[in-house]
Every structure is written in C-alpha cells, then in structure tokens.
C-alpha cells in the first residue's frame, strides 16, 4: 500500500527537465542583477532624505520585501484552492513554498522596519496597529507550519494546510489595509491615499515619493524586482527541493521493500 502511494508520488513528481533548469538558472541570475540594480538605485542614485538622512534608504528594501511577501502568500492561496479542487500534489508544494518564502521576506520586512524605527521613532518596536498586525501575520504562518508538522497522514496534512493557508491570508489583507482604516497608526502609507494628519507625519517619519529625485524610480524598480522575480524564483527553487524530497522518500520506500 505504502509502496503504491510512494510510487504514484514519484510518478506525479517528474524529474526536473533541462529546459526548466536552464530557465530557472537564467532567472536566478536575472534576479541577482535586478536586486543589485535596485540597491544601486536606492543606496546611491536616489537623493538623501532631508529630514531622515541615510536611514530613509531602508525604505527601498522594506517596501519591496513586503510586496514580495504579499505575492508569496497569495501563491499559497492559489495553491490551496487549486489543491482542494484538483488534489494534485504540485499545488500543495506551491502553497508550502509560498508560506516559507513569504515568511523569509516578511522577516526582512520586519527587521528593516525595526532598524528604521530605532532612529526615527526612537524605539525598535511599538504596539502600533500595523506592527501588531504584521507580527500576528508572521505568527499565523508559523502556525501553518506547526499545523503541517502535527499531521502524520500526508493527504490530511495537505488538505488541512490548504484550508488554513486560505484562511491565513486574511491576516495579510488586514496588515495591508490596517494603516488605511486605523487613523491612530504612525506607520507611513507608501502606496495609496494618505488619510493621516499631515502635520503629524513630519514629526513621525513620512515617506514622500517626490521628496528628492530618484525616489520614485528606486521604489518602483525595487518593488517590481522583489514582487515578480524574487518570490517566484525562490518559490521555484523551493518546489524543486520539495520534489527531490519526495523522490528520496519514494526511493527509500522502494529500497526498504526489496
């Protein structure tokens, strides 16, 4: 029975073909170049912020990394829905990869935000609504991984993980929207209309796209690279890793049967 399951798992996980490998390596190199150009635009080309000084340059990583996490967590929702409909293992691999990559990018987002807040807000952390909801979001996806590891049956694990991955996305949406619905937040709004009092912004650290030349292009280019190339290339690598792990399991079962 287990051999049959393992065998079918091995069947549904084809060896990565050479075309795919070449494309992935090409995309990976492109991603590295893109990230380096983004860093150049942000760290050197863009003008220094008059109020905040050099630390403002963290925005060029902070904002793009959240965009990347958003894309990765969205991939988890897509993978979850597709798995529940088709029951193809590859969709669950996509969902799992989305969670892990999203967590990594969310961690970058959190750390850069914290480093920025130290000089600007004079504290590493405060219980601002957005910071709180971001921490909750990270804990939700950590809970996703705990839920997965708590279930032995692989089919049940994939099913439950898909359901939870869909529900968990509500915390991502809340994190994205909360600075727009909570007037008492001091977190700057980068994309979309600003509802907060303008006089408050000047004292608590604002983000203006037209403050100095090069800001808009650095944010736009960085966000494009971090939301298109970075998450998808990492997710692809992670799926390949998952496929290899599946093949190893299948082989191990085969060896033990003999």
């Amino acid at each position, binding site marked *: 029975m287990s051999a049959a399951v393992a065998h079918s798992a091995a069947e549904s996980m084809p060896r990565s073909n050479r075309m795919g490998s070449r494309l992935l390596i090409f995309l990976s190199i492109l991603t590295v170049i893109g990230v380096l150009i983004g860093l150049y635009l942000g760290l050197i080309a863009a003008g220094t912020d008059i109020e905040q000084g050099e630390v403002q340059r963290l925005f060029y990583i902070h904002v793009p990394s959240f965009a990347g996490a958003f894309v990765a967590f969205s991939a988890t929702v897509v993978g979850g829905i597709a798995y529940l409909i088709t029951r193809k293992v590859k969709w669950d691999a996509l969902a799992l990869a989305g969670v892990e990559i999203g967590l990594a990018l969310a961690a970058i987002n959190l750390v850069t935000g914290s480093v920025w807040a130290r000089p600007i807000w004079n504290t590493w952390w405060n219980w601002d609504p957005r910071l709180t909801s971001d921490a909750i979001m990270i804990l939700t996806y950590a*809970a996703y991984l705990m*839920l997965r590891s*708590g*279930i032995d049956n692989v089919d049940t694990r994939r099913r439950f993980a898909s359901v939870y991955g869909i*529900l968990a996305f*509500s*915390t991502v949406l*809340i994190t994205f929207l909360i600075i727009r619905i909570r007037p008492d937040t001091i977190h700057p709004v980068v994309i979309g209309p600003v509802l907060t009092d303008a006089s408050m912004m000047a004292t608590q650290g604002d983000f203006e796209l037209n403050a100095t030349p090069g800001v808009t292009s650095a944010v736009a280019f960085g966000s494009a690279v971090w939301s298109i190339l970075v998450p998808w290339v990492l997710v692809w690598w992670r799926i390949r890793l998952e496929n290899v792990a599946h093949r190893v399991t299948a082989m191990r079962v085969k060896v033990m049967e003999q």
Partner: protein
Amino acid sequence: MKTTPFFKAVLAIVRKDLQAEMRGRELVGAMGVFALLAILIFSFALELDREARNEVISGVLWVTVIFSSILGLNRSLAMERDQGNLDALLLAPIGRGAVYVGKLIGNYIFTLAISAILLPVMSALYGVSLFNPYVLLTLLLGVLGFTTVGTLLATMTVQTRAREALLPIVMMPVALPIILSAVRASTGALSGASVDDWIGWVQILGALDAIFVVMCFFLFPFVVEE
C-alpha cells in the same frame, strides 16, 4: 438516497448538542468555572483601581470569553470525535454544510451562555455596568465571528497529533481581526464617547462575520473528508 432538508438537519444537530449538554453539563460547567477563575485572576493580576477598570474591562471580558470558548470548542469537537459521532454524522444522509452550521450554532449558544453568566458577575465585581445595548450587540457579533472560525479549526485540530494544544495557536491569529474590532467597539460603547466615534468597529465586525461565515461554510467539507 434522499437527504434530510438542510434546516431540519441543522436543528437536529443543535438539539442533540443541547440535550447532551443538559444531561452531562460537560461543556458549560468547565467553561463557566474557567471563566469565573479567569476574571478573578485578572482582578488580582491587574490590581485595578476605579478608573483603570473602565479602561480595561472590555479587554478582560473578551479575553475571558475567548479562552473559555477555546476550551469549549476543543471539548465539543473532541467529544464528537472520540465517541465516533463525527463519523456517524458524516455517514448520515445530510449535507456537510448542515453538520457545520449545526455544530456552529451549538458552540455559539454555549459561548453566549458563558457570556450571559459573565456579564452580571463582572458588572458586580468590577462595578461597571456591562448591560449596554451596544456591548450586547458586540458580544452577539464577536462571539459569532470567532466560534465560526473556531468550529472549523477545532474540527481540524482534533484530528492532529497535538490536538488540544494546537487550537489556540492556529485560531488566535486568524480570529484576531474579530477580537480587535470587538474590543474596540465595546470599549467605545462603555467609554461614553459619541456613537459615531466607534460605530465603525461594529460595522467592520459585521462585515468580518459575513466573510468568515461564508468562507468557513465552504471550507468545512474539505476538513471532514474520509
């Protein structure tokens, strides 16, 4: 095979839960004692003076309601599973949605019963009247929101290895938007500020309830396969 009409099936499941509770008093007993202990512990731990009480009472109320509800959800679904009743329900000619709504209404009633005990006790102990129409409305909406999420997630977690330990971990973050807006709405209602200042939270709460009810209703069939 002909399936039982939806509402008839839901009613039957609710009646079964209520009857089992009337005879055994397993859930409300444990939840009630826990809730009373929790508010006592809070009053020692926070050493509240008169003014601080007004500020934190809705937070204390919600944390107590949520933790006792988690206790009840775990028991409610664990009982179904341990005694093989969940399998029987799934074999019965009724829709999976009806099973979900039935269990949800049962859990909702039990948690509301705990809230009904808590309100007078907390009003007396903390000297702040909680019998405000908006606080009651917030309770009805907020408890609905997290029992909706909780019933779905508890059905999942009772089938895992960690069982009881896992429910709070997976449920709290997902239910947080509901808890946040419920606390804000009831704090606003008790603060005596004008309705316009906090009514938005009640609206957000209603919208979240609608979203979660629909999502969980459609996701439930996937967690009870086999």
